[in-house]
């Protein structure tokens, strides 16, 4: 159990600058998730913590030791890989015992730890099998078990669920979360799946092109994205973006573009004043749009035409066109609308987001 600190961390390969000035303080017992599109440097960051990649510049501290020059085996970490990295020539038991054997633990202790871990994960009856006789989910459990037996200070996970089918992934996600609550070990978890990140992480780190975009609790990222990238990356279906012009009329600010004109909500007005007459990006999440009813204030209502209807059961996703913009709205399952039908949408005023067109930062 330990905190992990990354200070001005950088990684350069020959041509690629994979990780750029990463600063991160991971608290003791925290479950932190690194998320971002593929190639954004998540794995590289994790592998530097593990000691599998050399650190180009910066410093990593685990507990109170600077580990830059420590070989991986001395860092007191355990890692779970995407393809499980189970040894095909060893039984499940031997795979799980491997790290302890190499560290010359007494036999009895090894046996006890493996049994305990197997019990936690429900894989006692698999211990004598070889990895190739296991299903994907079982292999996944063994890979996790192999990390648990080590009782490390930090768990590192590199996309451990990516090779599982959707249903199993959801199930394992819950199990991992439960496991973390039970073991209370600091964990760094890498994934490209934002749902996984949101559900698992105490805090989530969004990365892109080697830069950290934002660090925060899941709902903070969802509610207050720092920039357009985070806003679009977190949440599914993704946030709608419409480039609008800020116009001044009737003593209020309006966001307008062809076929769409809504009032700038009061909470944003003061910050948008400097943008008067300029273009900005308006962001609205699909769940913050409803079909307009008579009671909705008309300043936040606009016309749209239905393009596609996607009934999901618990809700319906509508793909609509408003002027030149395409927009997705998430509406009640009771709504009955047909393709090409005209309708009116209302947005929830205090849930609208505005982004600078150039810097893409939230306004």
């Amino acid at each position, binding site marked *: 159990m330990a905190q992990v600190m990354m200070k001005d961390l950088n990684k350069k390969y020959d041509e690629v600058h994979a990780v750029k000035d990463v600063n991160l303080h991971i608290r003791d017992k925290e479950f932190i998730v690194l998320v971002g599109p593929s190639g954004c440097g998540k794995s590289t960051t994790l592998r530097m913590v593990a000691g599998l990649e050399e650190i180009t510049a910066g410093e990593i501290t685990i507990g109170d030791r600077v580990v830059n020059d420590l070989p*991986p*085996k001395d860092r007191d970490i355990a*890692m779970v*890989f995407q393809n499980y990295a189970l040894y095909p020539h060893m039984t499940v038991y031997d795979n799980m015992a491997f*790290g302890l054997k*190499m560290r010359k633990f007494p036999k009895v202790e090894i046996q006890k730890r493996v049994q305990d871990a197997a019990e936690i994960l429900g894989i006692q009856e698999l211990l004598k099998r070889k990895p190739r006789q296991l299903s994907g989910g079982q292999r996944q459990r063994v890979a996790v078990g192999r990390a648990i037996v080590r009782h490390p200070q930090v768990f590192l996970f590199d996309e451990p669920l990516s090779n599982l089918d959707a249903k199993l992934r959801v199930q394992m996600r819950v199990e991992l979360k439960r496991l973390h609550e039970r073991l209370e070990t600091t964990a760094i978890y890498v994934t490209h799946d934002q749902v996984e990140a949101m559900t698992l992480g105490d805090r989530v780190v969004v990365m892109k092109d080697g830069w950290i975009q934002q660090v925060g609790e899941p709902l903070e990222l969802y509610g207050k994205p720092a920039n357009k990238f985070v806003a679009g990356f977190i949440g599914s279906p993704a946030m709608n973006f419409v480039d609008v012009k800020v116009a001044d009329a009737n003593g209020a600010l309006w966001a307008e573009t062809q076929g769409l004109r809504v009032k700038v909500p009061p909470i944003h007005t003061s910050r948008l004043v400097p943008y008067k007459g300029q273009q900005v990006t308006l962001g609205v999440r699909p769940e913050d749009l409803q079909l307009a009813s008579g009671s909705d204030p008309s300043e936040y209502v606009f016309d749209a035409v239905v393009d596609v209807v996607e009934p999901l059961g618990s809700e319906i996703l509508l793909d609509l066109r408003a002027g030149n913009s395409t927009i997705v709205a998430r509406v009640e399952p009771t709504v009955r609308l047909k393709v090409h039908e005209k309708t009116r949408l209302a947005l929830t005023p205090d849930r609208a987001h505005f982004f600078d067109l150039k810097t893409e930062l939230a306004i």
Partner: protein
Amino acid sequence: MGGLTQVRPGSVPHGPAQAPAGSVRRREILVAYALLTPAVLLVLGVLAYPVAWEVWISLTSFASRAESRSFVGVANYRTMLADAFFWRALATTVVYFVVTTLAKLAVGVALALLLARPCRGRALVFLAVFLPWAYPGGVTVVAWYWMLNPPLITSYSVAVGHWKHAVDGVAGAGAYTFASVALFNIWRGASFTAVFLLAGLNAIPRELFDYARLETRSAAQRFRHVTLPLLRPFLALAVFLSFTTAFADLANVWMLTGGRVIFPVVGTYAYWLGIRSGEFAEAAAWSLSLVPLLLLALAVLFRWFDPPREAPA
């Protein structure tokens, strides 16, 4: 061989056979046999006669001097087995195979591990490493002969002579020639083994080695518990290939030097009996005596390569 083991019937869990829909299935079988015909004709067809001939001859008294050829049963084998010389030759043969194969594996593994690391000028190193194998063995053996056993008048034959004397003095007469043939075979085979094992290393998922780096305390530990077991299938195949080149090189050395630089091993002595002395029947018996050994080695390798699987989950 990885492929071979998978052709065993029943190892493919799905496929058209599950639904033996009469004519479709029959057509597939026909197509398969049609496709295999040229290969089978050329390989088995061309080889069947010589092998059968060899077996038959070994059971007769055929020799260039004998006026008639009669069936003698296993008499040739009995003579051979009673011959102390045969057992010495057999021992030498086995030692030759074991020594060269082990050496090739050791050098090959070491070299493969070196080549697996990225470094500048890697292409050139590859070329250097591959040259001994790509170069005609019949030609390089002459170069080696010239190097290690120069004729007396050559300028450096004095120096080599001292060496030869020293080696033979320590390990017994013939040790130097044995060593030079073995060295030649190792030189030629090790680089091929290395490139082959490198292919094997690259085929192993990198994460397996990453994990080993996290969990093991030393490079030696990692090598013993991870690298070596993971390479096992490739090593088995390398041993198999080593056998074939060891044979070929031995024959090359023998032919080239007119039997000078050689100690009796089973293959060459058989040739000597057959071509030089015209004792075809005895020669055939000698050549065939290696077959059981080869089959045994092969069976062991197959097992080693593909250990029987436990009942699947």
